[in-house]
């Protein structure tokens, strides 16, 4: 039996970062009031980490968590009062553990000093509690670890190798684990080990615990053990545990609710049956079986489609995971700015693709930081302005059509139009005589290096930011719009596609080339009359559509395709829209609508101007997906975004 200890460690790190995230969330909630459930939950997390770190001989982590546990225990017993100073210390402890674990993972090179933190912790214990004299009893702890190891080795014996080899096939199993170890410890071990093989594991011993059979599922922490202790009740902490593996882990683990996996398995089963039916028809095919054949094909098509949707759903995670980090961010930053800010979130259960969640976290962080630093005023300013002392930042997510909309809004002072304009003139971005709309003025803040902050703080104001936010959101296929009302706040609206993996597209042709246009950006397609086409001297052609003039983008010119239709009245104009701008794309023909799987051109080649990605067409050839924002920018005369080939 050769078990890769590194794999097990990986599982521990994963669990630990979940535990830390949960601790953090609960600590933040704790500030609102000492709730025994919360305290218990925090204690459990610390305890789990201690157990796990002991198993892997991470002495620093173990010692520290032990100290922390002692403190938490006193808090739980009511010997120490919950104060801001205490939660602050506990939050720093969470950070400290994160650092310690980072060292263990080899992600951090500089050593972390544990002793000062421990001293601080024992100082509190000594000062406030009666004793604080519980020392780290190494013997007792070793015994505990040994017991855990014993339990774990049983699982290891259960061909852990196999488990790691076929990761996708983690089917929920049930194990009746009855030991002399406290049931909470069993639960923890189970959490670390992640899944138990059903057959070879038979753990005999009498049962002290009233615990029902432990259901061990692929998401052990979340769904597992019906513990006798109350589980966390707060809205924010539910499901909070799996957060934060987002940015950290390189080894890309995706946690999937068992329910989703079960549905997949059912569907695959169905597909197999349909395929068997098809085989059967094909084996003894006679012309009179044609109706059966077509029925069977329809069934396969339906099952395939459903399977595709379900598989996509596997990658869909609640946005909660991206939102989770913000309570802490707001807590810390508002304190350091001397502002009082409350974060409100809504729609955390909105699901979107994992890649998007990972990609959106940083831009959102930036927006929230901006709101804290520039948006919300200091309490004094707010009172003077007749607003409540506490500022609010709202973070909401919802679905809208095929998109997800994330809004970051604050009730602060809003953008200062004059100040932005003055700064822009100073930087030479705007000429003196120019008259700009509000929208245009606000979009100036997206310029690289643009900042109106009077002073550079450590939070923001250096002017690197909004341009990065915008470009990273664009890279995800999304857009950002912003609205602001002086005196009452700023709102950023981020629109993202639900998934980057599948796209509903319109297939069209230009001569013998086939392209795909994302359906979400198409408004309509028309065959214009000759009198609607106008030539603007030096600016190309425009088409008048319901008294609106739209620039015509000639795809054949842009992509240098010979033999295409060049007369707009013979071809078709597809009206596309992005970011409020419209353009008419001249194509030869529309072929049809279909769902395509988006493939990257960049993985083996590079970004091609005007092309957002590629896909495999029904005939097995590659089809290119058009980059609508780039095409529109081109029509707006922003030539730099699309190098003209013609």
């Amino acid at each position, binding site marked *: 039996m050769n078990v890769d200890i590194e794999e097990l460690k990986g599982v521990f790190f994963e669990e630990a970062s979940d535990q830390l995230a949960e601790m953090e969330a609960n600590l933040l909630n704790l500030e609102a009031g000492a709730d025994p459930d919360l305290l218990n939950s925090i204690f459990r997390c610390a305890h789990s980490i201690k157990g796990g770190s002991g198993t892997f001989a991470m002495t620093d982590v173990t010692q520290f968590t032990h100290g922390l546990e002692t403190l938490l225990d006193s808090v739980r017993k009511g010997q120490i009062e919950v104060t801001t100073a205490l939660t602050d210390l506990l939050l720093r402890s969470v950070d400290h553990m994160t650092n310690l674990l980072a060292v263990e993972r080899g992600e951090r090179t500089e050593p972390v000093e544990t002793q000062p933190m421990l001293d601080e912790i024992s100082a509190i214990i000594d000062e406030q509690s009666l004793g604080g004299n519980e020392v780290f009893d190494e013997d007792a702890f070793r015994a505990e670890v040994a017991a855990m190891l014993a339990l774990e080795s049983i699982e290891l014996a259960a061909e852990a190798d196999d488990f790691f080899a076929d990761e996708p096939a983690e089917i929920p199993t049930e194990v009746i684990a009855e030991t002399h170890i406290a049931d909470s410890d069993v639960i923890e071990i189970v959490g670390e080990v992640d899944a138990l093989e059903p057959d070879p594991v038979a753990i005999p011993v009498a049962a002290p615990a009233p615990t029902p059979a432990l259901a061990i599922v692929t998401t052990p922490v979340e769904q597992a053990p019906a513990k006798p202790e109350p589980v966390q009740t707060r809205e924010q902490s539910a499901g909070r545990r799996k957060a934060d593996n987002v940015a950290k882990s390189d080894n890309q683990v995706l946690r999937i609710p068992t329910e989703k996996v079960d549905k997949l398995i059912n569907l695959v089963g169905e597909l197999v049956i349909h395929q068997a039916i098809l085989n059967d028809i094909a084996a003894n095919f006679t012309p009179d079986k044609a109706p059966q054949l077509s029925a069977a094909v329809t069934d396969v098509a339906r099952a395939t489609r459903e399977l595709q949707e379900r598989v996509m759903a596997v990658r869909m995670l609640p946005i909660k995971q991206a939102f989770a980090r913000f309570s802490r961010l707001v807590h810390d930053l508002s304190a350091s700015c001397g502002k009082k800010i409350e974060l409100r979130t809504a729609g955390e259960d909105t699901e979107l693709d994992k890649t998007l969640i990972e990609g959106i976290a940083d831009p959102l962080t930036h927006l929230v930081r901006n709101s804290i630093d520039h948006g919300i005023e200091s309490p004094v300013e707010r009172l003077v302005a007749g607003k409540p002392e506490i500022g609010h930042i709202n973070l909401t997510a919802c679905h809208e059509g095929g998109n997800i909309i994330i809004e970051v809004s604050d009730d602060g002072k809003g953008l200062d139009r004059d100040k932005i304009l003055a700064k822009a003139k100073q930087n030479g971005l705007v000429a003196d005589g120019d008259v700009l709309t509000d929208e245009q003025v606000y979009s100036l803040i997206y310029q690289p290096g643009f900042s109106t902050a009077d002073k550079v703080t450590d939070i923001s104001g250096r002017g690197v930011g909004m341009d990065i936010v915008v470009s990273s959101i664009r890279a995800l296929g999304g857009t950002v719009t912003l609205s602001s009302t002086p005196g009452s706040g700023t709102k950023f609206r981020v629109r993202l596609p639900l998934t980057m993996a599948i796209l509903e597209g319109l297939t069209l042709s230009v001569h013998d*080339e*086939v392209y795909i246009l994302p359906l979400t950006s198409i408004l309509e397609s028309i065959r214009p009359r000759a009198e609607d086409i106008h030539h603007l001297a030096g600016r190309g052609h425009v088409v008048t559509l319901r008294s609106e003039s739209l620039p015509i983008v000639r795809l054949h010119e*842009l*992509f*240098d*395709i010979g033999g295409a239709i060049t007369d707009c009245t013979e071809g078709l104009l597809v009206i596309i829209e992005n970011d409020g701008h419209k353009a008419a794309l001249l194509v030869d023909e529309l072929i049809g609508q279909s769902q395509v799987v988006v*493939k*990257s*051109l960049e*993985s*083996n*080649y*590079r*970004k*091609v*101007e*005007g*092309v957002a990605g*590629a896909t*495999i067409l029904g005939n*097995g*050839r*590659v*089809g*290119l997906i058009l980059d609508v924002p780039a095409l529109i920018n081109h029509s707006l005369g922003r030539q730099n975004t*699309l*190098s003209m*080939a013609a």
Partner: protein
Amino acid sequence: MTQATDTQDVLAVESTNQYLTFSLAGEEYGIDILKVQEIKGFVPTTRLPNSPAHVTGVLNLRGTIVPLIDLRLKFGFQPLEYDKFNAIIVMVVGSRVIGTIVDSVSEVATINGTDIQEAPEFGQGANANMIAGMAKVGEKLIILLDIDTVFADETATLALAA
């Protein structure tokens, strides 16, 4: 594998001594067999707009989008109208998979390190390092390509479309 001598250390070629040889515009070329993923028949490609001429297009390799490079154009030779008799060599260059279309694939030749001569000096041109060496197999002279250098442009992540 024991052929290595001190004069061979300059070669950028890995320590394998098997080369896939192919013909291109009347010359024989060889590339390290370890860089070759597979050889397949010519398939129609999808043209990429705004791309250099030697990038013929992209093809579907079992669901992966792979760019196809026309080595004739890349090397500045006369273009050829390709058909089903031409071959595509799919290579792994760094982390990327790249297809190259060649006139025809010849054989897998075992070339001992001692039979490889250094390429003659061509000066400082961009193409100077593309040739890892020259080898004589029977009567034929085989030009050994350093494929990583040949496709340095294609694999550069930040390169802009020409």
